[in-house]
């Protein structure tokens, strides 16, 4: 808990050619909070996440403050197929106890039996759990999740939601999940941001106790509100609900 710095972004503008993806974006994340970032495709969600992950260079005029340890889980597991699962999790870890730490992290995500497995032998859900373990083993103060469950089937996704919440409660990293799934955002996060045209268009606190249920009246109301923030017409929302 030595590094409890906030995540703070001021005036982040990203252009690709003539296309402005992020437009003077400001963002503050409380230490240990769980935030969901919603937005239509092309709204700049992924660009923001990539900037926070250090994958895209931050422009000089933006003021970005990040904790020391940042880890990410992507939509695909992105495990190195030529390394056994434990070695994937231990990738880049310093110290002689890297393997032991990797094994502990894999135990936490329920993959203790698969330490020596090759990534291609895992199911989609298992591979994504290994990717979660690889992020967690670094004890990140900021955990970035880029649509990590989008490619999973519905049942696996429900299990992964519970797992992510468990891990978040146990380790307490500031967590930012990018998703286009409104339900996922409301189920997981304390706060939902809607990104539109490179700006944060809505910032909504989710004040509901966990575990949350889709049937809850507050859930339904919030879901409807977020869908309309995302620009869906009222009748489409009724039909979807």
């Amino acid at each position, binding site marked *: 808990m030595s590094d409890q710095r906030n995540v703070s972004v001021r005036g982040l503008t990203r252009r690709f050619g003539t296309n402005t993806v992020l437009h003077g974006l400001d963002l503050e994340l409380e230490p240990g909070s769980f935030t969901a970032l919603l937005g239509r495709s092309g709204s700049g969600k992924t660009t923001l996440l990539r900037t926070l*992950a*250090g*994958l895209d260079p931050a422009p000089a005029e933006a003021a970005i403050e990040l904790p020391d340890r*940042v*880890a*990410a889980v*992507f939509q*695909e597991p*992105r495990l*190195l*197929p*030529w*390394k*056994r699962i434990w070695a994937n999790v231990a*990738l*880049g870890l310093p110290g002689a106890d890297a393997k032991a730490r990797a094994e502990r992290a894999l135990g936490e995500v329920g993959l203790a*039996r*698969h330490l*020596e*497995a*090759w*990534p*291609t*032998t*895992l*199911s989609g859900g*298992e591979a994504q759990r290994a990717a979660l373990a*690889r992020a967690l083993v*670094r004890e990140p103060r900021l955990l970035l999740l880029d649509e990590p469950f989008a490619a999973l089937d519905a049942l696996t996704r429900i299990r992964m939601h519970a797992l992510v919440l468990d891990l978040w409660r146990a380790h307490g990293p500031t967590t930012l999940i990018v998703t286009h799934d409104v339900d996922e955002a409301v189920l997981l996060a304390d706060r939902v941001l809607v990104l539109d045209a490179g700006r944060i268009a809505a910032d909504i606190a989710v004040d509901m106790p966990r575990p949350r249920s889709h049937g809850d009246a507050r859930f339904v109301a919030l879901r409807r509100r977020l869908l309309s923030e995302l620009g869906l017409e009222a009748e489409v929302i009724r039909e979807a609900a």
Partner: protein
Amino acid sequence: MSDTHAIGARRALAPARLREVVRPSNGAGFGLSRYKRFASSIVILLLWQGASMAGLIAPRTLAAPTTIVATAWELILSGELPHNLFVSLGRVAAGLLIGVSSGVTLALIAGLSKRGEEIVDAPMQMLRTLPFLALVPLFILWFGIGEAPKIALVSLGSAFPVYLTLFAGIRGTDPKLMEAGRVFGLDRAGLIRHVVLPGALPSGLVGLRYALGSALLSLVIAEQINATAGIGFLINDARDFLRTDVIVVGLVVYALLGLLADALVRTVERRALAWRPNLIKG
């Protein structure tokens, strides 16, 4: 990993084509199908033998299979075949060592840096369009007729396949895996070691297989250049004495060398690429 779940996932990942190749090995009809596969070859051999014995094929055209086997046995016992084989293997080994190591080195230089690519790749791409066997006259002028032009030809033949495939493999690294490596704190050296090189290894090994084939081809041509030992010498010498039996023995040895080379790379692949779905065992 013996649990059914992992096996199920693995099955799903293995391409159907591979499964079909694997299936006969535990199917009941394997013995029969193998027998059928060789039946026509055996018939041809028998016809050949019969024609030779009936005098339809003159020994100076083609020796009888039994004569060839007997000659092979004699050549082995007299030490002539082992000696010449040893010389040929030495040439292949020396040529491969030079060719593969320079191919790998050049591929690393060109693959891992932009400047390296600018310097190395264009000349390599130009040179590879040249049928390297056409360089024999030039090599004789440069290196004389001793061992040097033979080894140089084998080196040249094996360097290009390794260079081309390894370079392509390095450049074909999945950028998503590179990003993951960067997020998890790998520096440039770490990325090369953990992401780029293991990812390029499969295509590099394909290149190695081509290189071995190419090296063998180079050997055959090289040994036509005034050799005083080696399988090629054995064949050329036999030609002067109309010994078709010895020529065929030499050809068989070349073929066996090809098979051996392929088996060698397959073994390396099984060890180095154990992570690939079609190589994972239960």
